[in-house]
């Protein structure tokens, strides 16, 4: 199984987008969801989700609440805030700008 590293700086984007699509999720669900959606192309070192989530909590992009999983275990569920949605839009437009520029370089070649 040969998977590509995610481009640097896009981890926040991936998490934000995942939360926007799925609503409340805990860390394990977010990791699985990213993997599923990208059809196993992108590889996230799963642990690195957690420092990123901590940082997003501080930034106020997400809030966290403890809840119970289907398997009846305690899990921390993250939810997007209004400022998180704004950040998502911002990250998307930034990402598209960068990708667009890179694509233009590739096409002229």
């Amino acid at each position, binding site marked *: 199984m040969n998977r590509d590293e995610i481009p640097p700086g896009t981890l926040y984007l991936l998490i934000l987008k995942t939360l926007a699509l799925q609503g409340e999720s805990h*860390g*394990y669900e977010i990791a699985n969801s990213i993997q599923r959606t990208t059809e196993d192309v992108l590889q996230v070192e799963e*642990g690195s989700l957690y*420092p990123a989530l901590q940082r997003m909590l501080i930034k106020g992009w997400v809030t966290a609440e403890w809840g119970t999983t289907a398997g009846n275990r305690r899990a921390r569920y993250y939810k997007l805030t209004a400022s998180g949605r704004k950040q998502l839009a911002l990250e998307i437009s930034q990402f598209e700008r960068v990708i667009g520029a890179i694509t233009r370089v590739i096409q002229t070649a």
Partner: protein
Amino acid sequence: MPKPLELLRRIRMLLHRDRFQSDLEEEMRLHLDLREQEQREGGLSSQAADQAAYRRFGNPTAIKEKSHLTWGWVWLEDFLEDVRYGFRSMLRSPALTAVALLSLALGIGANTAIFSFLDAVMLRSLPVKDPSQLVLLGRGDDSGVTDSYGSTTLYSYPFYRLMQQKNAVFSDVAAIFSMSNRAHGTIDGRDEVEEMHIQLVSGTYFPTLGVQPALGRALTDEDDNTEGDHPVAVVSYAWWKRALAGDPAVLSRKIKLGTTIFNIVGVAPPEFFGTNVGEAPDVWIPLSMMNTAPLSFNGYKDDFYQSMLLMGRLKPDVSMEQATSNVNVLYQQITRAFPDANLNPRNLANLSKAHVVLTPMATGLSSLRNRFSDPLKILMGVTTLVLLIACANIANLLLARSTARAREFAVRQALGAGRMRLVRQLLTESLLLAVVGGLLGVGLAAFADRLLLRMISGGPDVIPLDVSINLRLLLFNLAVTVATAILFGIVPALRGTRVDVTDALKDGRGSASGTSRSPLGKVLIVAQVAISLVLTVGAILFIRSLVNLTKVDTGFNREGVLRLEVDSNVTGLKGDDPRMIAMFQQIEERVNALPGVKAASFASFVFGQGSWNTEIRVPGMEAREDINVKHNVIGNDYFAALQIPLLGGRTFGPQDTATSHRVAIISERMARDLFPPGVNPIGHHYYTRLDPRPDSDVEVVGIVKDVKFRTLQEPPQYIDYIPNPQHPWGYGDLAVRYSGDFNTVSNEVQQAIHSVNRTLPISRITTLDEQVTRSITNQRLVAQLSAFFGLLAVFLSCIGIYGLMSYIVSRRTNEIGIRIAIGASRADVRWLVMREIVLLVAAGIAVGIPITLAGSRFVSNMLFGMSGVNWISLVASVASLLLVGLIAGYLPARRASRVDPMVALRYE
């Protein structure tokens, strides 16, 4: 993104970091468990599933640390950790900690104490509105009354009024009477008189300063527009609390001064002490009342009664240059336009030379500043040097300890601690030492301030100076503390952490690393000895200067004279009233008749009490404007009371009355220099003013020996003495030569005075000797303090030498053991160590001598009776430093000589 919210969240994380930590752990555990479960369901064995889960997750510890970092508090947690560790390591070596803290507390405390005086006397701004806008006309370095043309310090009241009206540069101008007055008055409803410090000011004084009263109203221009009919007073807050016990009805209280009753109209705010640092008037009275007893200054309308300091508040957009030029133009215009201006060529020449300098007045006026700025600067330098020695000492101790801790650092570095992390920890430990030392220093300074203030005051009346610990002082203290921590901490920290890990981890007292650290320690010792030399030589110089001063021949016999002051103003009589003259003579007679009294006499000045001087004119000699003669008005037995030898002619007697022919007795120096050579001055006439007017003509009837008049340092003065009936002025200082018990005589003298007039207030009872001693208070202060700090410096250096040598000896125990084993005698070993000490001290002295020579030139103007290089002081200091250095080093040397080779070598 609102930042404050983010900070709030960070702080919440800091406060509940245990919960956040466990939340994170639980979350990560769940993740791993779920992944493992998934893998197992996919068919892996439980061990393989576990491994796969970890592989996909990454290193949980590293991830935890990374999350931790995002909280942004690592620095704080590290710091707290360091502080905790620092405390533990301080307690682990209590002796070192005690020595370090003691020397730091003394060093920082002394610095803070001296700085608080420097601050109070020289730096602090007046507690008024925008003090930086205030300027003084002239330099403010004079006080009194002068009628000479071209005075740019003292001005007349009419001049003040014209300047106030005509200037274009000040928003307001105020006049301050240059003499402060101690007068006796009565508070309504009381019998006894009380002494008060009275300050005459113009009505514009408070408005110009922008000072709002705490109660009632301030003085205004209305109180000062007509002479004699505004008996109002503003009292100080401290006086209100002290003398009136904070009476809320203060505004209906009255003060009787002489025969005039003043209504209290206001109380100044608590922080306001006037404009003169080191003086705190009790009562402010408008200048319009200057001629009411007891003040009796007849100068409200006199164009040339120049007795006031003028202060202006610059308009906001006016520069100093503009103000100076405007003031100088007006100065010439106003003075020349006075109708009674005597514009003879001499006065015109003086006027045209006069230039008014504007002096910033933000820090107020201060006679203390002139007296104490040099001593304070010197003491500040001395205490800084002491602190440097203390720093060197602690650096040395820490160096020794950090070498002893080399193993610990090696272990920590081997376990992965970064060098900067270790440096930071060592610096934190230094900072901790410094902060504790600094706190102790503040406590010490608070105590030392009170002691110093008493020493500076030099008498029972403590100078009203606020030297309490304030914010500026604490900031200064903090800066000094941090600077010392860095100074003594950085080198040991860098040195201590530069370890060769494998070498240090090998067992034993490595001989290689032992020698690599000593040079730095030795350099520090050399520096300490050099600074100690500077300080001891300084101390010896100041002490010898003080001794010289106490040995000065005053011209009078300072022993066995009682001194007191009588305030005759309470009688309401003018000085030339025959009843007043008779009263003084009667007191002199009664006191003279007392059993223990040999001679008693009043005088205007006895010693160090200011002067009244004028130019004189001696017929047959050229008129000299640059020579002032000091006049002293005395009673008939003055020379007997002070035992001033009469060199020719006669003293005054009953024949010298107000109506008899006017006479004077002159000093030896005046007779020699100011009278025609070859002519006996006795019988010669002269004028006590420059103008040869008949009413100032006197005949010389006697010549007396030169005396010191204002200070012990002054060269011989030109002095003449005038009998009281012929010029009754400012009289009231009594000098009594007595034998027997001071207190008995003092009581008898006071009873005798009150038997003549019951109401006369008597104050400042002391001895002449005490009075003379008090005049050299600041020299004594500098001598005592520099001696104290000199001793402290030597003591600290001794600790340094002792510490370093003990350390070196313990590092070289193996070597010494081998030397003894192969036949070195105890004496050889002792000499081995002592030689090192002698070399260190000698090197320090060699470095210190040129610095000392340069430094002593710097203080030479503060030394009395010494000139050139002072070899005796230098040799004495060198000898004593060598001696104490050897004593300090002897103990480690003896310990070295007692090393048991068996024990020493077993260690290897």
